[in-house]
């Protein structure tokens, strides 16, 4: 197999190194960068994110990454907040009055989870549920546990590939065209997480 060139988009967030180390463990070379050339030349892109939507979108804007990401033709995998940023809009606005416009690559929105008496953040290992087949889920049984940490979630939409349920059903894996995302952290999800990353590399 030809080694795909994978660029982890440097969003300046704290989990960049975890994502890179996960690929290192798989023997897959990656480059962490926000240089336009590195994004354009990559065969695959990873969009990591940790923190808040408003801060992360501001960072994408500052680093002039918004148009570059929107114009990407290669497979892109958003992780956690990176997936949420693919949506139309996020309600994770913090102290501002306005909702946060996102990349608008997936026709869905992100809002605070309604969980009743359950605790937030939704933190820990939870099960995903899906129907049919998807290249990202090859060899991963329905009901597998992945590691989640979040309080906001993407609503279920036509782009939803897999769901998770915590108080309510939300999108655990999404895909619209070449833009994919996981709400959970595959880089921290043990063997099944490594399998999902391998599947992405081999797509």
């Amino acid at each position: 197999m030809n080694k795909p060139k994978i660029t982890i988009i440097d969003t300046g967030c704290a989990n960049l190194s975890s994502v890179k180390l996960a690929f290192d463990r798989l023997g897959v070379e990656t480059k962490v960068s926000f240089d336009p050339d590195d994004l354009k030349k990559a065969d695959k892109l990873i969009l990591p994110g940790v923190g808040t939507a408003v801060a992360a979108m501001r960072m994408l804007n500052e680093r002039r990454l918004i148009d570059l990401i929107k114009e990407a033709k290669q497979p892109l995998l958003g992780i956690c907040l990176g997936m949420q940023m693919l949506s139309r809009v996020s309600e994770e606005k913090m102290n501002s009055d306005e909702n946060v416009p996102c990349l608008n690559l997936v026709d869905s929105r992100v809002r605070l989870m309604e969980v009743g008496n359950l605790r937030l953040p939704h933190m820990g290992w939870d099960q995903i549920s899906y129907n049919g087949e998807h290249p990202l889920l090859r060899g991963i049984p329905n009901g597998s546990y992945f590691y989640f940490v979040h309080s906001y979630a993407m609503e279920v939409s036509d782009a939803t590939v897999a769901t998770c349920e915590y108080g309510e059903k939300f999108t655990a894996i999404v895909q619209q065209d070449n833009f994919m995302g996981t709400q959970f952290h595959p880089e921290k999800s043990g063997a099944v997480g490594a399998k999902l990353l391998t599947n992405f590399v081999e797509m």
Partner: protein
Amino acid sequence: MLAKRIIPCLDVKEGVVVKGVQFRNHEVMGDIVPLAKRYADEGADELVFYDITASSDARVVDKSWVRRVAEVIDIPFCVAGGIKSIDDAKRILEYGADKVSINSPALADPELITRLADRFGVQCVVVGIDSYFDAELDRYCVKQYTGVVSKTRTTQWSTMDWIREVQQRGAGEIVLNMMNQDGMRKGYDLEQLKKARATAKVPLIASGGAGEMVHFRDAFKETDVDGCLAASVFHKGIIAIPELKDYLRKEGVAIRD
């Protein structure tokens, strides 16, 4: 369904894993990385590393072991000890830790909780609470600087008030170390956990006292904590993680496969 978490805790002192009884008389348990790897391979859901010398020694502690752990571990882990600023936390998160846990520095400067939560998100910010039951006063109180016996002090905080306070300030998770039970292997303090559970709206982790598998069961079933943390029973091979998870599954606790 969200799984209950089994969390081995590795107390780190000068770069090796140690364990004491009621926070004293530390004995060396082994190197950090092989122990961490073993627990992850055996099915631990998460790991916590407490650098127990850090806060009480008021010095910069070498944290490069965090990177070595991050290189080999593919489950989440949290680092505690000596984190007093945004920069301290940033360094540890950049090394690859998922969360930082603050304890004594949060008592010295409660605003630190908010600063960390604003910068890194509440999911990164764990507050560890060393809670001691004072039988004379019939009161759970919060202790500070428990890493060194001579420096340990009792704060003015009652445990439940401090839980409320840290939550309001942005703690994303609380680890309740029940000091009277620590290292005794006689079970978690279920009464205290019930009170803490009723107070904590964020994930709550029980710590201190696990000695048998039934102690984990009781904490999960009777107090609905999100995770159980333990050290000596795992380090000394008294309880094997795969066996514990099988047992809890049979007892009807939601446990990751």
